[in-house]
């Protein structure tokens, strides 16, 4: 395999990882601050994608579509938080898993009810449709560069938000000690709604960005959700830094595993079966990674004590 191709694959892994980060950041924030496992996070991703597709179809503007995705997902998140989620904060994980599993059913079938069973159309904006040539002669899709850029920007913004702003102080206080923020005179229920909506908006943004290059369909959220869980578990639940590192690890493992493992097995066995075995192992690679991390660090790479 040529170096150029390898670099391109690393970029692909990076792009995948950055997209996972957008999902994982919200999940990990919500868990860190409210102690809630939200299986319905993938549904908010889907809401973002559908809102973007519907808006793009109506207005033709990709920017408006992204804005719509953010608003729709944040609004859906806030509504769900106000009606359902806030009753779950002092419940055990089991109740949270079940209630948010139920939300997935409601969101998925509700979306199908409204938009029908066929995938929706959402395309990348014309200006970003083609590839650009990177230094070193790598041709890379402009839109994927945009995703990498936006993901890194959001990551930087989140770090700033958490380290520099009042909200950030409250969030960190909430992560350290849930009772303390009450003592600080913070309106907890407002903070919770805000954090949940923020997490939802990030998921919605991810859904819209990815929807343009993948298919916008019911059920698109669940595979990503499971990957995002793998990410935050590897990174350590509650840690934004962990989510970032975990996302990149998972993105790179998945992409490079799919590319390199078949070649690796080709060293031992003949080509056609090496491809099959390699593909099989690659499909399990991130789960093996996760199990490995947890066996050596049961609370993830950047996780504190449980």
């Amino acid at each position, binding site marked *: 395999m040529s170096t150029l191709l390898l670099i*391109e*694959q690393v970029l692909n892994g990076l792009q995948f990882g950055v997209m996972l980060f957008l999902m994982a950041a919200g999940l990990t924030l919500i868990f860190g601050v409210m102690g809630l496992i939200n299986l319905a996070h993938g549904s908010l991703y889907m809401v973002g994608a559908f809102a973007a597709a519907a808006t793009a179809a109506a207005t033709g503007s990709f920017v408006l579509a992204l804005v719509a995705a953010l608003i729709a997902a944040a609004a859906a998140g806030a509504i769900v938080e106000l009606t359902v989620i806030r009753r779950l904060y002092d419940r055990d994980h089991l109740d949270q898993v079940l209630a948010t599993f139920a939300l997935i059913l409601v969101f998925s079938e509700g979306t199908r009810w409204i938009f029908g*069973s066929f995938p929706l*159309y959402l395309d*990348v904006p014309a200006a970003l449709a083609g590839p650009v040539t990177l230094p070193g002669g790598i041709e890379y899709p402009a839109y994927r560069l945009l995703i990498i850029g936006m993901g890194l920007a959001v990551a930087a913004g989140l770090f700033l938000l958490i380290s520099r702003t009042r909200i950030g102080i409250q969030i960190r206080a909430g992560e350290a000690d849930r009772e303390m923020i009450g003592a600080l005179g913070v309106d907890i229920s407002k903070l919770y709604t805000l954090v949940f909506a923020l997490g939802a908006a990030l998921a919605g943004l991810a859904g819209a960005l990815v929807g343009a290059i993948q298919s916008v369909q019911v059920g698109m959220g669940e595979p990503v959700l499971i990957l995002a869980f793998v990410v935050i578990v590897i990174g350590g639940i509650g840690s934004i830094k962990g989510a970032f590192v975990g996302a990149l690890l998972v993105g790179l493992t998945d992409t490079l595993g*799919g590319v390199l493992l078949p070649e690796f097995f080709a060293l031992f066995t003949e080509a056609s079966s090496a491809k099959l075995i390699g593909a099989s192992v690659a499909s399990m690679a991130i789960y093996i990674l996760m199990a490995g991390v947890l066996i050596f660090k049961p609370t993830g790479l950047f996780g504190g004590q449980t």
Partner: protein
Amino acid sequence: MKLHSLMLAAGLAATASMGMAEKIKVGMITTLSGGGAGLGIDVRDGFLLAVKGNDDIELVIEDDQRKPEIAVQLADKMIQSEKVDVMTGIIWSNLAMAVVPAATAQGKFYVSPNAGPSALAGKGCHPNYFNVAWQNDAYHEAAGKWASENGVGKVVVMAPNYPAGKDAITGFKRFFTGEIADEVYTKLGQQDYAAEIAQIRASGADMVYYFLPGGMGISFMKQYAGSGADVQVMGPAFSFDQGILGAIGDAALGVKNTAHWSKDLDVPGNADFVAAFQAEYGRLPSVYAAQGFDTGLLLASAAAKADVADADAFRAALKEADFQSVRGEFSFGANNHPVQTIYVREVVKEGDVVTNKLLGAAAENHSDAYAADCKM
């Protein structure tokens, strides 16, 4: 729907006891909810259009949710409680493998409107099993043949790492005489193909042939168009069907795909079917709708000729395939699978609508590779 069919069943019991004309009772198990529901809905709607106003056929429809376990249980229900004569409707090969052998073993007829797994065409064939659509390999074989005959030298083939994916690649290679530059197996349900696209670009191939059903194909095509790769793309009609083209959009323009039917195919009855389907449902028919329609016509033709209580007569009536298929020439081979022409279509834009245009035949009077294994 259930209540409705119950009432019909009660009515049927009443009329039967009065010794009136025999109807055939058809049980349709298809995917109406969850992922892939679009396919089942098209098959159902096509079928309903074909048997509209036909008093010989009574239909019970159930949703399998694309879960094989549910399909098996529904099949039990249709056989045990509804006491259907004929079953149909299943979209997916894995569901068909779960249902068909048990149904035919219990003396029921099964007429497949979509799935055509190789096991049921070869060693596992059965006199009561008829496939109206195609054997699974047919589109891929035709594509391989077409590519060989049209000067394509070097091909990358790509499919998910699961049985139908492996069959697709085998099918393509069976008729392709050029060089296979690379075989790429992806994860089932994979949505991001950046890594594979990079491999395709680096392979120096003339063409990429891929089989990625459902959302996977949509994702691949959109990403492929944005990658700047200029390797020609070809695939089976599954990834370029009407329901899917709407979601891919312009990114699919120019892609060749193989199918046994196209809405602009100039054969008797096809134009009427397309118009009637559009009038009834407000959308263009897909190949699945056409398959559902043909399935309905086939059953209606057999019901008109023979009493389903006489299994041998009914089987013979089915085998005759005495109906005007919207694909044109159609007959059953020795293993009850179609002998038909597979065409090549190109994705074009008609006004604002992205759709398929017929280019020509890829493989005429094509049958499948498994008939020889079928002993019946």
